[in-house]
């Protein structure tokens, strides 16, 4: 099945989210849930590593929009990394590259949180 599995990892105060597979209107629920859970447990520093994300539709972008305000109001952020060209293009077309910080590598995204702290 063309599905989505979302793995999580904690790195200091940062939550690493690994969506693997396809995010469309059918699979988005689990992605949304994971993001909501972070907000509920007040984990506002989130890195989404897109290395294994093969597809995202507006449903997935909507899930990000659904939590970004609360995250930022609490001095957190959602940063993205390891995007394939296809995924980056979709963010770019919608101007979301100005709305989210997108890094080439996970380590850079992680590092940007500690820099912000200093």
């Amino acid at each position: 099945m063309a599905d989505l599995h979302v793995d999580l990892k904690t790195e200091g105060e940062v939550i690493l989210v690994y969506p693997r597979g396809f995010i469309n209107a059918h699979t988005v629920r689990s992605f949304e849930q994971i993001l909501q859970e972070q907000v509920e447990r007040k984990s506002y520093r989130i890195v989404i590593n897109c290395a294994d994300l093969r597809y995202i539709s507006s449903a997935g972008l909507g899930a990000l929009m659904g939590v970004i305000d609360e995250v930022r109001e609490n001095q957190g952020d959602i940063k993205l990394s390891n995007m394939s060209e296809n995924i980056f293009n979709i963010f770019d077309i919608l101007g979301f590259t100005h709305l989210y910080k997108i890094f080439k590598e996970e380590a850079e995204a992680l590092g940007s949180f500690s820099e912000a702290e200093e």
Partner: protein
Amino acid sequence: MGKAIEQGSIEVVIPSDTRYLHMVTNLTRSASLLAGFPKKTCEQMALAVDEAVTNVIRHSYDNQSWHEIQIGFTLTAEALKIDIRHGGVQVDLAAVEKPDLERYIAERRRGGLGLTLMQKLMDRVEFDQTNSLEHECCMWKYRTPHGSPGAKPQPGD
């Protein structure tokens, strides 16, 4: 063999169920690759069709999964035309706010991205505004200057 198809059409009928979305994006990708569009353009068309079909399921059929959606791919020398037909509620463009990404981003709205994406990804998007029992969303991708194979090779081909 490696030659692209110049004319032809494909018709698909699927239930109004999001479980078929992935299949439809795959089919769209295959059909547009067959038509000779660059890979990147094919990805974009697959996403546009996903968004159009998702909207029909959500808004035209109110998430009821037992209706039918027909998708037609018509290839001519000039363009690939994709039409999505259904018997549910048609989008009322007058009632839908004009996509304004700057405001969208400023207001952090959650939905409303689907139509914007369709319009950005395709060269032309039209909804019929008749009152017939069957409604239609038509999307076009022209072979030139936007997607002519060879004429303007894209990275990742």
